[in-house]
């Protein structure tokens, strides 16, 4: 390898930092959407690299369904304290209380779909013109087609047929009033890249990413954490299982995998050998083959 050729992790990192700085340079009121998941934790690390010793030119925004893993919320609060950056929380519970959304009923009830409304309200309230997110193109077929700067209309909608051409590394962030841009700095990273980066940077993660014992039930062939947020009936049998989570979302729709990966090296080994893609462990994508495309059009992240 020549001395002037970047290794892939350095190249991905440099690209993401470049994108974050473009957001800072092009927008008046950007925000970083923080979910507590490893992808948004990676974004925070990249933001440190892009802007330190200065402050972040944007707050962190968390859309809290109220059904999060406790470990995620603890992690979030500790992180914000360490960084000394501003955190804004949008509560799905508030949207429910205001009658803007109605809690789902039945066994598979989840607040996951409700957070779109809370997100759009939070964007409107704070007049955010750009929201940075940790989505990656390798996650899902609809995401594979999304731009790095992805313009949403005033209803938060994504129109796959009317995307702006994105040439070289020149990102066009010009928008009309009411529109906003979703920005995806780690679009070109794969799940494995993120894990390798976390290991290289020695980043801390919420503990649920690592193997632990937990009460679980099995639904639709998938392991779900037993919690007060999950509507359970007599058919649901609680079992103690050794599990970890590959994504960190709402407790009602994030499935666990049986795992004995206690350290990050174990996880990387597990993923390298894995035969199930990451979103395969998200029940919300399973509804139909076109599920993600439909949700994106409706303003989901």
């Amino acid at each position: 390898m020549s001395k002037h050729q970047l290794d892939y992790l350095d190249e991905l990192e440099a690209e993401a930092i470049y994108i974050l700085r473009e957001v800072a340079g092009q927008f008046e009121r950007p925000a970083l959407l923080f979910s507590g998941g490893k992808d948004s934790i990676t974004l925070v690390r990249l933001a440190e690299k892009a802007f330190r010793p200065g402050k972040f030119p944007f707050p962190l925004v968390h859309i809290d369904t109220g059904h999060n893993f406790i470990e995620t919320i603890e992690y979030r609060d500790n992180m914000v304290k360490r960084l000394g950056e501003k955190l804004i929380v949008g509560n799905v519970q508030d949207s429910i209380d205001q009658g803007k959304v109605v809690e789902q009923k039945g066994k598979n009830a989840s607040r996951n779909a409700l957070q779109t409304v809370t997100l759009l309200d939070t964007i409107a309230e704070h007049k955010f013109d750009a929201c940075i997110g940790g989505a990656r193109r390798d996650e899902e077929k609809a995401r594979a087609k999304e731009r790095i700067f992805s313009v949403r209309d005033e209803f938060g909608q994504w129109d796959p047929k009317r995307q702006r051409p994105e040439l070289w590394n020149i990102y066009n962030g010009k928008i009309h009033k009411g529109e906003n841009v979703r920005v995806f700095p780690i679009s070109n990273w794969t799940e494995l890249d993120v894990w390798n980066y976390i290991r290289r940077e020695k980043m801390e993660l919420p503990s649920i990413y690592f193997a632990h014992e937990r009460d679980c039930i099995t639904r639709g062939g998938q392991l779900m954490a037993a919690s007060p947020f999950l509507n359970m009936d007599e058919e649901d049998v609680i079992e103690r299982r050794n599990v970890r989570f590959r994504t960190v979302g709402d407790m009602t729709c994030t499935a666990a995998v049986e795992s004995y990966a206690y350290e990050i090296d174990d996880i990387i080994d597990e993923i390298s050998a894995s035969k199930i893609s990451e979103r395969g462990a998200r029940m919300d994508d399973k509804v139909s083959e076109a599920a993600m495309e439909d949700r994106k059009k409706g303003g989901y992240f």
Partner: protein
Amino acid sequence: MEILKFITAGSVDDGKSTLIGRLLYDSESILLDQLEALHSSNRKNDDGTIDLAILTDGLKAEREQGITIDVAYKYFQTEKRKFIIADTPGHTQYTRNMVTGASNANLAIILIDARKGVIEQTIRHSFLVSLLGLPKVVVCVNKMDMVDFSEEVYNDIVKNYQALAVKVGLKNVVFIPVSALKGDNIVNKSTNINWYHGKSLLDYLETVEINIDDTIAHARFPVQWVVRPQTDELHDYRGYAGRISSGSFRVNDKVTVLPSGFSSTVSKIEVFDKEPEEAFAGMSVTVHLKDNIDISRGDILVNTDYQPQLSQVIEADLCWMDTRALDTSHTYFIQHNSKVTRCRIQEVLHKVNINTLEKEYDEDFKLNDIGRIIIKTADPLAFDPYQVNKANGGAIIIDSRTNVTVGALMLRAVAD
């Protein structure tokens, strides 16, 4: 490990999606749940085998029409390299997507149907690959199984293509006879094509030298953001943040800021918590200068001894990407690196018929048209000719009415 970014260009029926599907499938880059979806899909080939094209076409609208409507990015990795594929559609109306995909690639795979040979679309794709300055081109002559793996058919196509390559200015083209449907010469060497002694496609992609033109070109550093903490202990801290677009910078290098023309010396280069002596193309860094001069986003730091062109009137190649035709009386925005300024297309010199490569002289510049123009900008641009330094020679045009990106510019030279 390095990353190779490539595009695949072929017409609707050349089996492009099948080729990508085959690369992913045979290199075992498909995960179990994706494979399950593939097997459970009711789309099959005529002989009942699974249709690998399903792996690349993502959107509902496409599945309904059986075509690819946009650039889709796919990722896979072997032991030797990481790959990013920009899958771009082949039909006429989507030239803009191919230009988009090509702008971010270091290599192009051009597909030719062995039964059809070099056709109009091959000319179009090859012209675009040349215009966008892709350093490496590999031509896959596909569907060899449909022509009985005939060496003669293949050689004819190679000969015809070489003539085309000369005409559009492509050098060092590599040819591979393949069957994406059957898997010949995609990942594994074909036993059906024993007269071919070169590499399989994947073997080629894993070993081809990745272009390092950007790092040997002259030093260019567009400033994206000025880091000024303004805290008590960092009162005098002033760092210029950006990504080196070409060449390299060292501490003590003499640099000039354009367009202002002020010069200074690099005092420090920061990469987060490290302070390297040298940084090169592709790296995101923070640069400090010895002198306190006024620099902001949109300015570019360059090596004082090797300065780019600086002009407000520039000759360029233009690809138009909007349904609303170019209006030479309208004021647009131009974005070049981190610089945005107003501009007008002063003159259309000619258009190119990309199917015949003939010049045309009508003034109308519509969606997917390509040609040469003269642009006038409100502020001067510090640019290099695109064919010499891609990283500092590309720009986009934005319609100030819609904010949409409507044109891609490959800057050529200062116009008199």
